């Protein structure tokens, strides 16, 4: 197992955070958050990967066949479901901000200062 997927996961995490920090649009922020989240997918899959492993379906397979870890895949699926909710919610909030304030630029919303 190479270190490469872990580097990709770290890169996605950092570049996604950079996107959130530097963004000037709430919709864009939601998408950057999805990039941060992709890093968790890559990390989980990398942890469960086995070189030469088969998909974890054991009906008819020989005992001792190496298989990739199904648990991390289940975790990843749960993660996707959870985060789909959150991104949908964020986009809904962005729509509401556009309606109320006429902008989705966080730089132009100044009510919560101090």
């Amino acid at each position, binding site marked *: 197992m190479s270190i490469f997927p872990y580097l990709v996961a770290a890169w996605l995490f950092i570049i996604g955070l950079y996107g959130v920090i530097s963004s000037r649009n709430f919709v864009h922020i939601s998408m950057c958050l999805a990039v941060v989240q992709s890093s968790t997918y890559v990390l989980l899959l990398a*942890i469960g990967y086995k070189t030469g492993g088969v998909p974890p379906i054991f009906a008819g397979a020989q005992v001792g066949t190496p298989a990739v870890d199904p648990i991390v895949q289940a975790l990843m699926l749960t993660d996707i479901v959870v985060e789909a909710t959150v991104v949908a919610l964020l986009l809904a*909030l962005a729509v509401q901000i556009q309606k109320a304030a006429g902008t989705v630029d966080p730089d132009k919303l100044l009510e919560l*200062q*101090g």
Partner: protein
Amino acid sequence: MQSLVPLPVAIPLGVAAILAALNGHLPRRIADAASILATIAAGVITFDLMLLSRHAPIIYWFGGWTVRAGMAIGISFAIDPIGAGLATFACVLVLAAFVFSLHYFDSIGTMYHVLMLGFLAAMCGFCLTGDLFNLFVFFELMSAAAFALCGYKNEEESAQQGALNFAVTNTIGAFMVLIGIALLYSRTGALNMAQVGRALSNQMDATVIVAFVMLMCGFYVKAAAVPFHFWLADAHAVAPTPVCILFSGVMVELGVYAVARVYWAIMDGPFAAHRPALGGLLLTVGTITAVIGAIMCFGQRHIKRLLAFSTISHVGLLIIAFALLTPDGLAGGAIYTLGHGMVKAALFIVAGILLHRFGTVDEYQLHGRARRHRATAIVFFVAGLGLSGMPPFATFLGEHTIEHAAEIAHHSWVSIVFFFAGAVTAAAVFRVTARVFFGWGPKHDEFSGGGKHISEQRETHDAGHNIPAVMFIPAAVLVVLALAVGIMPHMDQQARVAAFTMADHAGYQARVLDGSKLPDATPEQEHTPMAASLARSFGATAAALAIAFLTLAPWYPRKNKVYTPIRSAMQVLRNFHTGHVGDYVAFLTFGVAAFGIVLGFLIQYLHV
């Protein structure tokens, strides 16, 4: 008994699903009644579980997938008195919020109830679970419900912005928790906390440190530790009042609880030789949080935002309690959580009453307008006394227990932090009491003048001239409860027994994985001298009254050697709170990096 275990999660979720399905076809009062009954049922069961788990943690395996040969196959709830107690407390506060909101949100349909019940189910599950990934799922369910509740007043631009800041920062926190869990899984091949703890035993390496830093920082985003705290003030300033009760009273405390749970179930072995490193770092974080929260609290004019910063300050005290890394500290923290949650909930309810009656929670606009409402004034003032840690409130008992634990751990200086946080946050509450309910002092002052006016959408129609009983009674009851917990006989001893159970990781692992019950590690009853704590807490209350008085006194000169530097320091701090989500995430990133580097460095060079 076993069949009761899933109910605190299942009942609220089930009722929420039914209410969601019937949305729009159900009279409001039926939804109210169903929600309140579901909350009471969950509360009774969690209370029962707390009593039943006093002697040994209750382990429940979902679907009957029990341990095979020491391997956890299924997902477990592992219930001990502290977890079940926190779940009960969450039920109490949700009940108070439901009763308070009987007069609230006239036009909303039942989605509010659905979200509140989902929030409750998630909090109960979060407190009871014994599985790391399950912990993450409940964490996210709790967050998603909280984001939606926070932005409930969806015509207000600041409400949407506060909810968005809250959602973005907390979601990043949740990702960090997930990364920590993934790393622990890669290291141990397990997700059950007991099994992860046993697999790690006391091995320490870079993966374990990174995993713990990720978990801890992720949960401390929820707990609003400095520098992860920015979202909290925004979210509280804009969230509907009943939601604020839950945010401040129990949700942020659950962040501290989660770190304590993970530490004592999994990390105590690896960190056994590095306790001074971790403890020292967390004591620093807690102290900074307590001080910054208190100063920012005093500098607010928006009452809900003021109370929010006070919560940050008191969470700092809770982090200090955990940072002692002893069961005694944990016991004190548990009592303090109850005491603080109750008085803070009462304070928020009064803020909600003011919003209901006058359509604003701005301290200046309310100047002298609430003179008629004497009973409400008394509740607010007495809750302020509780906030300062005055005996016999539960906050005092908690602080005293923590101080005693700190003295044993040779950290007696934490009393100074308790004094400061109690005095300054209570002073802000007393200042608001005097100004709003008695009309004392100038209509404006420079101290809190920097805070801006935040427009506030009314949460109710038909304000009338009187305060509805369903709004006032929960506040009064919560204050009385805070007193009752404080004077309950043997409360501290019970909390210590519970804390020793939670901190006994060998016993926990044996109970979950082997089904055995180790001999009780019941602590000896000890007599703890109270004199120092009594002096400190009365001192804090007196100092709070004095500060509030001097702020309002017309003859007190506004330009002197004490006043001017504090004001400029406050302005510097305030400039960091920009309301800009990018800035918040930048601080968060910096905080995680700093945390990891400092902890790694301390572990390398600070050996026992």
